[in-house]
Structure formats: structure tokens, C-alpha cells
């Protein structure tokens, strides 16, 4: 992390400067374009040299925390190590240069990877068919709920427009229900973190389209009565959606397909370690049970003998359709493919084990150090929740204050204030790729901050102190939106 200030790139701009070698040769003015359709004022783009651009963005990059530089225990996000080989081999020039509409004669290599990825994802989830086209988790959720709706519609079961979500669900779950024209209905969670089965039983009925669950849940615990939940929903005529964000926890231990789920999305950018890129791209492949297979989004990769080809609406006439212009985030999928092949069956099974070991160890150490677990009676899955309500009450130091102060100690903060139902919570996910020493370092930092909260609360409340900026004013940002740079008026 650098603290050196960095100008806005437009402030470096000077008329006439430019990265000339990177521009193509010029051509005649396009006199065939009707004058009325031509642009007058040029767009406000910076005019900088190649060095300016390289230096600016290199320096900007240094103003980020990242997996490659910091422990990043951001709960629910599975910030594990992204093997460099995945990037290197996904960026081979032939893969990068391949046009999405190129004929399959010039794509057998690429399609083979995609086909095998589909097969591997089926194997790890226990589902019957997979489509790789959704571009992120929420996109996969959309596809999944749309398939559930299509399924009911195909059976003329048209009243089912309610999607049940546990109170702890990720925001994308209810938002997806809405995107799909459904209504999200919350199911309470019991004090042990499991879904309140009685409430669920009361909620299901002829309007139930399905339920969206992640298991382990976002409370960091495994939903123990999952079989009963599945039975209740299925008996009511609904289907079960598995939010795969937490798949890392159970890889090789238990499969959503075996738990009774009908559809699942996987966050390849979490479980299968494609990088998050500061906000994407991800890949949200969906897997389905046999009864939903006809509805999968297209395109899918099929195999005929030794040849691979695209399957589209002609092959899947009941498909919910297309979710994007081409075939999803192919480059991300290639990374996931390389990752899964490198880990292989043994390696993938280890992921769940060590992610769980790390989470339980970190939880145990933090509890020994006096922190309160939100679900002290439960095993942690790959992540767990601390609640700092005691600290907030006694010292007026909030979970957010702890989070910001952790940055000063060189740790990215855990997820804060999610799930919403645990007060002053930190959702902590160490992942399997971090070493014990790193976890111990984090515990030590938490203990230190705990002490600071008691004796020097201002220090914690004023954090961070060592980053390029101090704590930012979010309220002002929203009240007086400054969303684009404007040249100073001379």
C-alpha cells in the first residue's frame, strides 16, 4: 500500500500529449458519414503519454489491499489465493484472440475445456446438467429462479410466485426474486442459526415457487435439518434453490444435489478461485436436477463423438433463453477449468476440509481471547460470525470501528453488518489457503484492538490512521453525489 497521493488522470492531461505508438495509423476523414451524425466536441478523455498512464495506474494499484498483498478474510467472499497459472494459461494468445462467433472448427480446444468444466461441476455438486453462461452469482440466481418459474409454468402451475428466503439470506436472493417477477418472503431463523422449520411449514403452500438457501448458511453454520426442509418444500410443490456462494465449505463432503436441491449456482470466482478483479468478472454457472435440465440457459457445450459444439434454443426449445450476448465469461471459465484440473479430485476435497479447519481454529482462538461468537454452540463452517455488541455497549466501539482499525494492522476487514440479523457482527472467512501463522497474526491484532477499545477508544473510532485516506464520509458522498470529474472552469 502506498500513501503517496495520486492525481486524477485528467489532471495530468495536456492537449496534444498522447501514447502515439499505441494508436493505429490514421485514415482519411470518413466523408461518407452524414455530417448530422458526426460528433462535434471530442469526448473528455485524458491526453497523456504512455509513461503517464503506466505510472498513474501502477500507483493506483498500489493503493489497494488484495489477496496478493494482504490477508483478506471477507466473509461470504472466499478470498483465497488465485493461482497465477490460471491467469497465464487462460491468457494464451489463441484463447484471447478467439472470436465468440468463430466456427467450432476453430474452437475445439476451447470447447473441450468448457465441456469438461461442465462435467466437473456436475460431479462436485451432484447435479445433472450445467450451463456456464451466467456471469456472476446473482446472474446465476436469476437463471435459477427463472428456471423454477419456467418449470411451474410448463406444468401450468401458474400461481407460484413466492420465493422463500431465510432472514439471513444475502441481498441478491430477495433481489433476484423481484428480478424474476416473484415476491420474496422471509423465513425466520432460529436461535441456533438453523431455519425455523415450523415457520417454514406454515409459510409453504400453493403459491410457493421455491426456497433459496445457502448451506452452510450465511450465519456460518450448516443447516442441519436440510433434508426436512427439502421435504417440506417439495411436498408443497416448491423447488429448492442452492446459493453456491458457500460451496467452498462443503467441497468433497456433501453435495447440494444429494441434499435435495433442484438448482444451484456456483460462484466460480469464489469456490474455484478465479480472481475477483476488484469487483468482477465472476462466473455463476448453474447446475440443475433432471427435471430442470430442459430449461437451462443457452448456450451450453455439447459433445458429439469427438467433436464439441454449441447447443442453443434449437437443442433446448424450453430454455429460459439467453442471458448475455455470447457465452458468459469464457475467460473466467477457463481459469476455473485450470484451477479444478490442478486441484483434481483430491485437491478439491481438501478445500472444504482446510477451509473448515481454518475457520474453526480462528473461531476457537478468538473465543479464547474473549470475543463472542454469534452461535457459540455451533461448529463453524468455512466462516463464522463474531458479535461485538458487548464492545459496542461498553466502549462505544462498533464492529465498523474494529474493521477500520484492522486495516491499520495490515488486515483487510471481515464483512461487517451482514448478515443483518446479528448485531455488530463481523463475518470472518479465512479460506484454506492461509497459513496458521497468518491466522495467529490476525487474532493478535484483534486482541490489540480490543485493548485499544478499552483504553484508547478514540484511536479505534478514528481509524484507519495509516492508509492513503482517513475514514471517508459516506453520507456526504450520497447527499452530494460527485460522480464524474469536471474540469475547473477558468
Amino acid at each position, binding site marked *: 500500500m502506498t500513501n503517496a497521493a495520486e492525481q486524477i488522470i485528467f489532471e495530468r492531461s495536456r492537449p496534444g500529449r498522447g501514447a502515439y505508438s499505441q494508436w493505429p495509423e490514421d485514415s482519411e476523414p470518413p466523408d461518407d458519414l452524414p455530417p448530422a451524425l458526426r460528433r462535434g466536441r471530442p469526448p473528455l478523455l485524458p491526453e497523456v503519454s504512455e509513461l503517464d498512464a503506466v505510472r498513474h495506474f501502477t500507483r493506483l494499484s498500489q*493503493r489497494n489491499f488484495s489477496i496478493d498483498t494482504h490477508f483478506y478474510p471477507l466473509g461470504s467472499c472466499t478470498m483465497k489465493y488465485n493461482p497465477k497459472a490460471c491467469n497465464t494459461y487462460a491468457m494464451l494468445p489463441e484463447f484471447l484472440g478467439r472470436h*465468440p462467433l468463430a466456427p467450432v472448427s476453430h474452437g475445439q480446444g476451447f470447447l473441450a475445456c468448457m465441456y469438461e468444466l461442465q462435467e466437473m461441476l456436475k460431479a462436485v455438486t451432484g447435479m445433472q446438467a450445467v450451463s456456464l453462461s451466467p456471469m456472476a452469482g446473482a*446472474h446465476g440466481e436469476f437463471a435459477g429462479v427463472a428456471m423454477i418459474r419456467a418449470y411451474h409454468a410448463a406444468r401450468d402451475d401458474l400461481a407460484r410466485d413466492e420465493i422463500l428466503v431465510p432472514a439471513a439470506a444475502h*441481498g441478491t436472493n430477495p433481489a433476484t426474486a423481484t428480478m424474476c417477477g416473484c415476491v420474496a418472503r422471509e423465513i425466520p431463523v432460529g436461535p441456533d442459526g438453523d431455519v425455523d422449520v415450523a415457520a417454514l411449514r406454515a409459510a409453504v403452500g400453493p403459491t410457493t415457487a421455491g426456497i433459496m438457501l445457502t448451506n452452510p448458511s450465511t450465519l456460518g453454520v450448516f443447516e442441519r435439518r436440510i433434508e426436512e426442509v427439502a421435504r417440506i418444500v417439495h411436498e408443497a410443490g416448491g423447488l429448492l434453490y442452492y446459493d453456491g456462494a458457500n460451496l467452498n465449505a462443503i467441497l468433497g463432503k456433501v453435495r447440494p444435489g444429494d441434499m435435495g436441491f433442484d438448482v444451484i449456482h456456483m460462484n466460480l470466482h469464489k469456490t474455484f478461485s478465479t480472481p475477483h478483479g476488484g469487483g468482477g468478472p465472476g462466473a455463476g454457472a448453474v447446475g440443475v436436477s433432471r427435471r430442470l435440465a430442459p430449461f437451462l440457459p443457452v448456450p451450453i457445450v455439447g459433445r458429439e463423438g469427438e467433436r464439441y459444439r454449441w447447443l442453443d434454443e434449437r437443442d433446448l426449445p424450453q430454455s429460459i433463453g439467453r442471458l448475455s450476448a455470447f457465452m458468459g465469461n469464457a475467460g473466467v471459465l477457463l481459469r476455473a477449468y485450470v484451477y479444478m484440473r490442478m486441484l483434481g479430485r483430491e485437491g478439491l476435497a481438501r478445500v472444504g476440509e482446510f477451509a473448515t479447519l481454518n475457520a474453526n481454529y480462528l473461531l476457537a482462538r478468538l473465543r479464547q481471547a474473549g470475543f463472542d461468537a454469534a452461535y457459540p454452540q455451533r461448529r463453524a463452517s468455512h466462516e463464522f460470525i463474531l458479535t461485538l455488541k458487548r464492545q459496542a455497549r461498553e466502549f462505544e466501539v462498533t464492529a465498523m470501528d474494529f474493521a477500520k482499525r484492522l486495516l491499520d494492522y495490515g488486515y483487510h476487514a471481515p464483512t461487517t453488518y451482514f448478515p443483518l440479523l446479528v448485531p455488530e457482527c463481523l463475518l470472518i472467512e479465512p479460506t484454506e489457503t492461509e497459513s496458521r501463522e497468518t491466522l495467529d497474526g490476525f487474532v493478535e491484532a484483534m486482541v490489540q484492538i480490543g485493548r485499544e477499545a478499552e483504553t484508547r477508544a478514540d484511536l479505534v473510532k478514528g481509524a484507519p490512521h495509516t492508509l492513503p485516506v482517513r475514514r471517508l464520509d459516506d453520507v456526504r458522498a450520497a447527499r452530494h453525489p460527485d460522480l464524474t470529474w469536471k474540469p475547473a472552469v477558468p
Partner: protein
Amino acid sequence: MPFIPHTEEDVRQMLEAIGAQSIEELFDEIPATLRIRGLDGVPEAMREQEIGRLMTARAHADGRPLSFLGGGAYEHHIPAAVWAIATRGEFYSAYTPYQAEASQGTLQAIYEFQTMMASLTGMQVSNASLYDGASALAEAALMAVRAHRRSKSQRILVPANVHPHYRQTAVTTAGQQGLKFESLPYDPRGGHLAAEGLVPYAGQDVTALVIQHPNVFGVLEDVDALTDRAHAQGALVIAVVNPTSLALLKPPGEWGTEGADIVVGEGQPLGVPLSSGGPYFGFMTTRTEYARQMPGRIVGRTVDLAGHAGFTLTLQAREQHIRRGKATSNICTNQGLMMTAATIYLSMMGPQGLARVARTSHARTRDLVAALARLPGVRPAFDRPFFHEAVLRLEQPVGPLLEQLAAGDILGGLDLGAWYPELGSSLLVCATETKSDTDLERYAGAFSTALSAVRAA
């Protein structure tokens, strides 16, 4: 163990701290009936060296043909610096910038991106990317319904010359919420949408008109007339544009009297490799008044405790993690790294460089079209101005011709037959600034040979 740092001693001590006998024990809350014993369907692990060889061989098998394909994804030169920087670990392996103070690099890049895209499209505000151009159109349709409070119909008019995959994606996506997409025919001679096409809808409640410009045929639309007509009829205008073209073409913000209302498009041409279709990124810009209806992340500049400027995610009340079922969209992860690459690309291009890319790509396609149209039985399908891709009509079936070209490692363009049967034998071709005169000659030569061969066969 691969990608696991634990030594045996670590495991022992960690289990001790937990108070468990084995790792297995940590899974004791999972019903035993559900447990699996392995992942047989997954092949055994490969070493980095082995997977490297496999991937290299597969990439090699796909080759690097000379391509004249466009149709929504365009081969442009990408300066070496773009990905050298975008793949730096600090950009590549960071999460969404939730902890603003620890993510100023990504946040500032987004702010710069928003500035560039707003100006390029002639609008006031931009988000930080959507999945791709097609899904951005779907989001725009949903947004138009929210933004256009007076319209209750949820009817969106979409000309048939909008990229078919975009139309399909919009239907798949926004159709779920009951939006109705109605098709408008294009002019068979010009390939464009005649402004009269809107006349039948006069007096009806239409939420929005979509205008793709240049459209899927590469043809330019009467954007001013269409925009004004749509506005006059009470509909919003959603523009779908190619960002490269905006270096030369009037930005949607200046279409007609009032400009388009929502602008979306595919960001891929801005420094993103073709990569079989993704990851790309969709962009979206709009008027200030609609900012709170936008889906996706938005970054704002603010100040810190000490009064210094800094950047943070803002207007989050639109988003799922705050508003859940009432959010503007369910989108969460977007295409951040692609946006970062595009910001670097646009910085290196600047207004002049981008204009050259546009001019030269256009000039190349004109040269190509001219060369091909000189061949017997080949003529331009439409008589209107186009930008950097165009449709040719042939007297012979396109399929066999393309196959023959492909056998010679030339991807000769897109057979439009499947998308537009009414056009007969027609071929969408595109040449960008990456194509040299020699390339054009090679194509024209091979095309002519293939024409004769197919004719003879």
C-alpha cells in the same frame, strides 16, 4: 499439499486448539446420510506443468485465424500496457471495494471510468459496469420502466435490427417482470429503422424505444428523428452504442433535441480481448435525474476525516445489499477488472487515438466492402451509410463459402441467414484497424477463389 499451507504439525495443533480429534469431526453437524466419500467424477490433479502443456496444445489447436468477424465483438489492438497493469495482483486479486480506505486504487479508477464513459456518451452519470452489452440493455429496459413514472404499459419497442442476442437477452431477463418487447421492422433497402415506423404507436403508452446505432448491420440510424419522435410520443429512448464509434459519431446525449435517456453498450472494444465472448463489460450512462434508478455500483468522490478527497461506493440505497427485494437490480459482482482495463485503454488512446481507431476501422471496412463488391455476384445489401461493419448479399449460399475460407484460416464474416432469413444469402463483414492492406487482399483473393470453387461445385 497443493494450495494448502498446513503442515502436519499445524493440523495437530489447530485441532487441539479447537478441541477436535480430526478434521472429519468438524463436519459432524452434517447428516451422515448425506456425506460423500470423494469426488470421483473429477479427474486426478494435474501439476502446473501438465496443465500448461494441455492448455497450450488446446490453444494451438484453435489457432489464430485471420478474422473478419464483427457482430458485437471487435478485434482491436490492445496496447501491451493495458493488461500488464490490469493483471497486477493489487487490481486482479482484490474484491469489490467495500472497504473504501483499503481500495482507493480501484475506486479512483472507477471514478475516472465514470467520467470517461459519461463524456463519451454525452450523458451525466455512469455506473461501474454491468455484465455485458446485452444484459445492460435488459437492465436499461427495467430501468426505463422505473424511471418513466407516467408510463404504465411496460412496453418497449425494439427494432428488428437490434442485435438478436441483445433482444433475446432482454426478453429472457426483463420479460420475467412482465415487460413486453415489441418488434419494429427495419427498412429492407436501408437496413435502418424509418422514423415512420413509430407512427402506428402514436397516442399509445410506450415506455421506451430502443435504438441501436450503428445497428446490427453496421447501418447508421436517423437518431435525431427517432429520438425526437419517441420523445414526442412520450417514450424514453434507450441507446445501444458501440463506444469506439462515439469517437466519430454524435453521442446519444446529443441525439435529437433532448438526447437519449439511457445509454448502454458493450465495452469490449475498449481494450478487452475477444476471448470467445467474455469477460467483457456492459456500460450504462444516463441523466443525473435518473441516477438513483441505475443498477450497479457507482463511485463518488467525498472527503475523509481530515478533509482530504477520497473515493467510495455511493448511492447504495439502490443496491441489493441495502435494499434487498426493492433494489434496482440483483447485480452484485460486475465486470470490474474489464472496466479497469478499459480505463487504461481509454487513457492511452485519448480522444485522438480513439478517433483514429474508429476512422481506420471504418476505412478498412469500406475498402473491404469495395473490394468484395467488385466480385461477380456480390453486392452491398443496404444503401445507407454504415460504420465499420457491413452486410454483403451474395448469389450463393454463404455456409460453404465460409467453410472454405475457414479451411484456409480466414474467418470470412458472419452468415446472417440464421438471424435474418429474409435477407437471403448475406454476410456481415468487419475489418478493424488490425487489418492491413495485405490482409484485405488476402481475404479478397481467397473469397474470389472460394466463390468460383463453390459455384463450380
